[in-house]
């Protein structure tokens, strides 16, 4: 069938953009790294509190947060690009192509899965250079798979907003969505140390499981108990957000 070829062609086009306008991508690529350095510089002392998995190593603790943030930004950026395509009329062409709507969505969204590796790489290089703990190959591979999937979910969210508002001004809404999803978790501290309201929120937030799945290699060893909830959460998120995004796409023009 022709669909995989179409999906790949659309992904290639999205990746193409990074090469064509490198300047625009830089803030997004460096942001998680800057955030990580800043946060550990400011709040590093927090890891002295009892309850942190590795004593006094705030940096290793929050690197996974940076990885998820990179996935979130990348997903949001995908939505912004779609909004721009809509504003410029290019999206009309895609709509008129004899291509199934799911292939169109997949092509748009899967590019985020690849692109999120850019900020992730920058973050990891700087993080390790500053002394963060090596997660082991399994931990690292797992982290990469999980954030790629999360990037696709974030892209579905952003695509929904792009289709709803049809303007690049929706960008901040897309970003706030991913910002909230990643930070209202056990981002800054283990569950025990969170204030009660944040503890409850983090328990309800499926992204917490993804974060814990990404983090496990960094702070200890990979266990099945931390891995399967991460995948289950991602599956659920994909079904929900992917479903909504597909529905939005199918309903364009009504």
């Amino acid at each position, binding site marked *: 069938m022709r669909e995989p070829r179409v999906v790949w062609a659309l992904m290639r086009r999205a990746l193409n953009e990074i090469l064509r306008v490198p300047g625009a991508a830089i*803030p997004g690529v*460096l942001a998680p790294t800057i955030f990580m350095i*800043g946060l550990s*510089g400011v709040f*590093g*002392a*927090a890891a002295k*509190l009892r309850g942190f998995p590795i004593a006094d190593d705030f940096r290793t603790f929050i690197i996974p947060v940076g990885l998820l943030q990179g996935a979130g930004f990348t997903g949001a950026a995908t939505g912004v690009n779609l909004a721009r395509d809509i504003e410029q009329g290019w999206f009309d062409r895609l709509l008129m192509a004899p291509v199934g709507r799911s292939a169109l969505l997949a092509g748009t969204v899967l590019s985020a899965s690849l692109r999120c590796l850019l900020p992730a790489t920058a973050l990891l290089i700087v993080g390790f250079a500053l002394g963060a703990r090596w997660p082991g190959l399994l931990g690292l591979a797992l982290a990469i798979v999980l954030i790629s999937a999360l990037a696709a979910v974030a892209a579905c969210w952003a695509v929904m907003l792009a289709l709803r508002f049809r303007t690049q*001004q929706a960008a901040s809404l897309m970003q*706030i969505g991913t910002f909230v999803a990643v930070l209202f978790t056990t981002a800054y501290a283990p569950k025990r140390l969170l204030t009660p309201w944040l503890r409850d929120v983090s328990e309800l937030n499926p992204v917490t499981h993804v974060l814990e799945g990404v983090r496990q290699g960094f702070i200890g060893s990979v266990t099945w108990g931390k891995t399967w909830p991460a995948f289950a959460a991602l599956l659920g998120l994909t079904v929900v957000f992917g479903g909504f995004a597909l529905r939005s796409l199918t309903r364009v023009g009504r």
Partner: protein
Amino acid sequence: MRRATLALARRSLRNTLRRPQFLAPLVAFPTLFLAVNTGGLSRTTDLPGFPQVHGFFDFQLAAAITQSLLLGGVASGIAVALDIEGGFFDRLVAAPVPRLALVAGRVLATGVLALGQVAWFLALGLIFGAHIEGGVPGALVVFAIGAVAGTGFGAIGVALALRARSASTVQGIFPLVFVILFLSSAFFPRELLSQPAKAVADYNPLSYIAEGLRDPIVSTVSAGPVLYGLLAAAALTVAMAWLAVLALRGRLAND
């Protein structure tokens, strides 16, 4: 001069208020950040060396205010850049309006907006259980420093826009805002910052501004931090306004 400035300030304010989708991120992001920081790191008040506070939340309010004001400055810069891109700025330049008024109008508007931003966070604080230890005088001090700081950040935005001329360049500065804020004592006591950050924070005017905003909230209004805060904000405003006017003159000379 005064009339022109006021008229331009009124226009800037009106335009900003007419577009709430640009206004919302100015308070939304810092509010979310405030929530997460407080939720995640409240226990750090237990650390030895952390000043005596009613709560971590009270401590964080000043950081949120500073962040919001910085974003307000960036937003002003974007608005000016859009005016330039759209050609409206040329119309203003062609009008018999003193050059300084072109800068002062937008800067003044940012200062006024700052009052709104401070009000939001103080109200939020009160709703969620913070205590303003300095009482009403304390709150007024916070408003005062906030307004001056807001004006200063507005001047930075205007100066940037006059040099950069494109809205997307000014927008790209946004991440930088976070960087500079992190390299200060806005979020965490200076004594507890790790080394590279601490060294920079000692020289960062944002530290003094944030501390000036924070002091009336977490303790009674003490002369030191408040005066330093006002001084830092005022110095920043003067310096940046001067840079903005220079940028304006440079732009007008070249066109």
